[in-house]
């Protein structure tokens, strides 16, 4: 069983390699078969392993493939470590990944660079799997950078358009900033523990550090740096909305379901370090809270369908960070899974819409699609409901409610974080249903081509089902009290207990949460369906417009960073293009030439001057010999 471990990442890599080598020569069908097949097979293997794992319930599976290198007792290896946490992740990655691949075969059908697309997608899946299965941080870093590369390649997939290229570069560079922090963290960890093996570090950290010791805090913060970079949290969130330049399946897989949650994985993986550094953990929570609010507001103001989803992704990951920050580890991971389902679903629906509307992404040009594409409508609605966490029926409700509950009742929780979360929930449902109403209701504005085919609808339906039933594996203990998921994670991540006083009236807070999300739906209904005049009246006021613009540009972070970092760097680089240091050496040459000219004056070919030269020399020598 264990020995199959390496196949999971290996297959997608194999697929990628094949596609790269023979890509140009393969027929699209064959390319599709390879691309989808490789992920499919590794999904099957995952299933196999998963069944075995759930039945046998070992602590973990471990397989060392080969020793990467070994220098002076620093010997990381290419080795995989599969425990419950990574199990959850590889499930999501392989299955959602498989569905998205399937979907992509239709979505990208008439792309010339079909095989390149699937090569990158496979490469991505492979690297992502390495990331979550790595048994040491160096290998994790390999996957980490690998997914970064693929994200770069796929965002810039339509490279002819310079804007896409810049978006891709932006994504890579900004995430690289985070990675740098993380790398430094790795150096420190290595210096302290003499290894980068995750389990060893987790085991030794408590001995090495007292709770709240400075080292722990620094390391934790550095790791957090890496996490925020990848997961598009404050302050490194600006790349994610632009990343929507890529094809929609990419947004679904990389920028919604999997890669952007790598940060969540990292923090959960290194939870010991964070628990030893409460300050850092609180930072995580605050980052999450602030991010989810900011992103939520921005989402309210977007017109581009995909950008709305992008911001909502940022904000949902904010929830996960919030959960991790308050120590509700399993809640965070749970939300990650559910979010993967419904966000992938929403993106895919969006993709379907965009495809049928000839790559129209502006919601103002949409509308009335309810009748023209019913399947998409219903699935999208389910996804939206789950995102807006409509009570009882949707998975989103259970996952998000759990988070909200622990932000208040958990040991690390407090009122402010809770309030932020609640407000976030409200906003979430507003922009979600704003999206729904603008897209599917009202009169249609754009001509609709052929309705989407099977390969598109099937994944939608599956994901829709998942984003409903997915919630029922983890129900709060005041009704149902199903804890399958947290049980699964129990051996890896510590559980969490709510304060007793509050526990009594948990239902009150659940009601509150439900009310907020429903309230959000109502507001959206009011503004975007019932009486748009209201909206217009609001829009008339200058402040509102200014606020709108401010939110629309993502709170002006781009402008800020542009003036703070980009412009100075470019300026600095351009003024020194000719390399000042060089001028010093050329200067020396000039000086020598100057002397040459000066001396050659003396050689003027006139005999008497030469005689004079000798006389001068004579005088010089004689004075020396007489004076000294």
């Amino acid at each position, binding site marked *: 069983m264990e020995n199959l471990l390496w196949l999971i990442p290996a297959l997608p890599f194999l697929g990628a390699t094949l596609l790269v080598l023979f890509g140009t020569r393969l027929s699209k069908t064959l390319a599709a078969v390879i691309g989808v097949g490789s992920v499919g097979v590794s999904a099957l293997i995952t299933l196999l392993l998963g069944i075995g794992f759930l039945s046998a319930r070992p602590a973990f599976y471990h397989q060392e493939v080969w020793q990467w290198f070994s220098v002076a007792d*620093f010997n990381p290896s290419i080795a995989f470590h599969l425990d419950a946490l990574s199990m959850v992740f590889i499930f999501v990655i392989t299955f959602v990944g498989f569905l998205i691949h399937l979907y992509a075969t239709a979505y990208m059908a008439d792309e010339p660079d079909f095989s390149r697309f699937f090569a990158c997608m496979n490469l991505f899946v492979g690297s992502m799997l390495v990331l979550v299965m790595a048994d040491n941080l160096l290998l994790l870093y390999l996957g980490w950078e690998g997914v970064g590369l693929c994200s770069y390649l796929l965002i810039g997939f339509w490279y002819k358009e*310079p804007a896409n290229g810049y978006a*891709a570069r932006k994504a890579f560079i900004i995430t690289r900033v985070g990675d*740098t922090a993380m790398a430094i963290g790795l150096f420190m960890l290595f*210096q302290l523990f003499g290894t980068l093996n995750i389990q060893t570090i987790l085991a030794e950290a408590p001995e090495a550090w007292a709770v709240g010791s400075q080292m722990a805090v620094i390391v934790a913060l550095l790791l957090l740096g890496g996490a925020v970079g990848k997961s598009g949290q404050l302050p490194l969130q600006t790349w994610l909305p632009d990343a929507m330049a890529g094809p929609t399946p990419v947004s679904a897989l990389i920028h919604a379901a999997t890669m952007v949650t790598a940060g969540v994985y990292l923090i959960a993986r290194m939870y010991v370090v964070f628990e030893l550094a409460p300050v850092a953990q609180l930072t995580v929570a605050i980052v999450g809270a602030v991010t989810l609010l900011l992103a939520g507001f921005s989402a309210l103001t977007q017109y581009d369908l995909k950008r709305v989803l992008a911001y909502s992704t940022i904000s949902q990951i904010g929830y996960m960070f919030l959960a991790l920050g308050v120590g509700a580890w399993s809640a965070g991971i749970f939300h990650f899974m559910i979010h993967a389902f419904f966000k992938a679903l929403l993106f895919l629906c969006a993709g379907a819409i965009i495809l049928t509307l000839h790559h129209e992404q502006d919601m103002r040009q949409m509308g009335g699609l309810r009748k023209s594409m019913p399947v998409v409508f219903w699935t999208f609605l389910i996804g939206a409901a789950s995102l807006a966490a409509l009570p009882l029926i949707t998975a989103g409700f259970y996952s998000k409610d759990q988070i909200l509950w622990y932000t208040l009742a958990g040991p690390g929780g407090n009122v402010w974080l809770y309030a932020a979360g609640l407000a976030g929930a409200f906003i979430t449902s507003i922009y979600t249903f704003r999206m729904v109403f603008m897209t599917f209701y009202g009169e249609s504005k754009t001509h609709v081509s052929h309705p989407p085919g099977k390969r598109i609808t099937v994944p939608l339906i599956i994901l829709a089902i998942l984003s409903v039933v997915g919630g029922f594996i983890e129900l709060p203990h005041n009704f149902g009290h199903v804890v399958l998921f947290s049980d699964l994670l129990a051996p890896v991540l510590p559980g969490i207990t709510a304060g007793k006083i509050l526990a009594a009236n948990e239902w009150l807070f659940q009601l509150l949460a439900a009310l907020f999300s429903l309230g959000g739906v109502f507001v959206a209904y009011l503004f975007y369906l019932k009486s748009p005049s209201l909206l217009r009246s609001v829009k008339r006021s200058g402040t509102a417009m200014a606020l709108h613009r401010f939110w629309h540009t993502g709170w002006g972070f781009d402008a800020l960073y542009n003036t703070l970092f980009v412009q100075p760097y*470019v300026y600095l680089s351009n003024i020194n293009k000719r390399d000042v240091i060089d001028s010093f050496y050329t200067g020396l040459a000039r000086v020598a030439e100057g002397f040459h000219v000066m001396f050659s004056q003396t050689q003027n070919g006139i005999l008497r001057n030469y005689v004079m030269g000798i006389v001068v020399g004579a005088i010089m020598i004689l004075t020396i010999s007489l004076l000294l």
Partner: protein
Amino acid sequence: MILVWLIVILMVGGLLAWLSKKWHPVLPRWIALFAVLADLGLALYLWLRTPAATLGASPWLVRLEVPWIPQWGVNFILALDGLSLLMLLLSFFLGTLAVLISWREIRTKSGFFHFNLLWVLAGITGVFLTMDLFLFYFFWEVMLIPMYFLIGVWGHANRNYAAYKFFIFTQASGLLMLLAILGLYFIHGSQTGIYTFNYFELLDTALAPVAARLLMFGFLAAFLVKLPVVPFHSWLPDAHSEAPTAGSVILAGLLLKTGAYGLLRFVLPLFPTAAVEFAPWAMLLGVIGIIYGAILAFSQTDLKRLVAYTSVSHMGFIILGVFAFNEWALQGIVMQMIAHGLSTGALFIIAGFLYERLHTRDIQLMGGFWSKAPKMGVIALIFVMASLGLPGLGNFIAEFLTLVGSWQANNWLTVFATIGLVMATVYSLRIMQKVFFEPAPMEQALPDLTSREMLIATPMVLMILWLGLYPQPVLDTARPSIKQQLQAYQPASLEEKSLVAVPIAPPAVQVQLGDTVHFYKTRGGTHEPK
């Protein structure tokens, strides 16, 4: 004896290539190819014959010693250890590629061209092999002249200026090294009465602090200019961008490495105390180099010039690592030498391919080649990623090890060096963006790589991947000699050396050495949590 062959084959091959031009214009190419391949074969044989495990005891695989100018104590000493072996393998590998690249590119005076090419390689081989300081300087100079001709005769428009600059910079620094060598020679002679340039004997020269410092700077002058370290780098962009492709490959891939090699081989073991004193400054220089090079690389529009500045940036890591004095860093450097040799070499080769097709090196005029030349695109992508240090490719191992090592020595500088990685991303992606992604200003035809060119590119890709995924063989080969270089930095040996120094050296020396033991402990490779 096999070591002599390594050099002789190249030199004779060169002469033959030159003369054979008369009979047939293609002969020189084949002769050159065979000569380099023969050496590559020999080097590989040497490598495979000695499995890394057996390197344990003494790092020296082969040694040859013949008196040359006995009156001056100059011996013709060639000795091979893991480090040299790796460098040789790299040299001959890149040499082979250099010959292949020039197959079509060089049309005029092909005979003389290959003569120079082979003699550069011969000089480099000598530098990597010789363990006699006189001979070292001799080869050090020998490699310059042919290189000068490669640039000056077959270079691009501004070749003369570049060639002068290259020549004068390296000569000036080399002469300073010569002075240092002579100083060492006479000091050792006056101490022991044995006047010799033999590296192994000079190793245990006890130097007064001041003398050590001065002599070290003499050596450093040569090596830092060769590396090059900012602010001595300004010869490099000109030389690299003006040289013909083969020239650039050899410059970036090998000549720069001789500087790094010199640091490892001579500066570290000869002047331990002085080096430890100088370390923070050296590392600072390294960091400055990393950042300065990266910034300049970003604004360049001439592709080869851009790549040249990236080398400046990458070489910063080497000096950063050398003066960290621990095995991780030094292993990292060895990896860096090889990986950088491959990746930058490859980038220059790609620049060459583009130049052959478009007759321009200006990236403003390029663009959208991904669709026209996918193969070239993929290969370029791989090496661009290598140069920004993507895990899984050789450079990552190199840079990571170097940084891990330098972190032990100096945290803050390491932080800044790591920031250099971000800048590396910035300029590297700019290459991809400008050349392969965004559409070109004007439409031009661009045939994809020919089979010959694939023959050149594929091995490099495989090598860089291999280095990234399973570098162990390389590391094992280098380990013994690296331990050797580091011996002077094990506190024990410092004391022991100072004891040796007692009878002959002025007391100041012992005190000095004594201090540096602690000095070293506080800042050196010991890694207890701080």
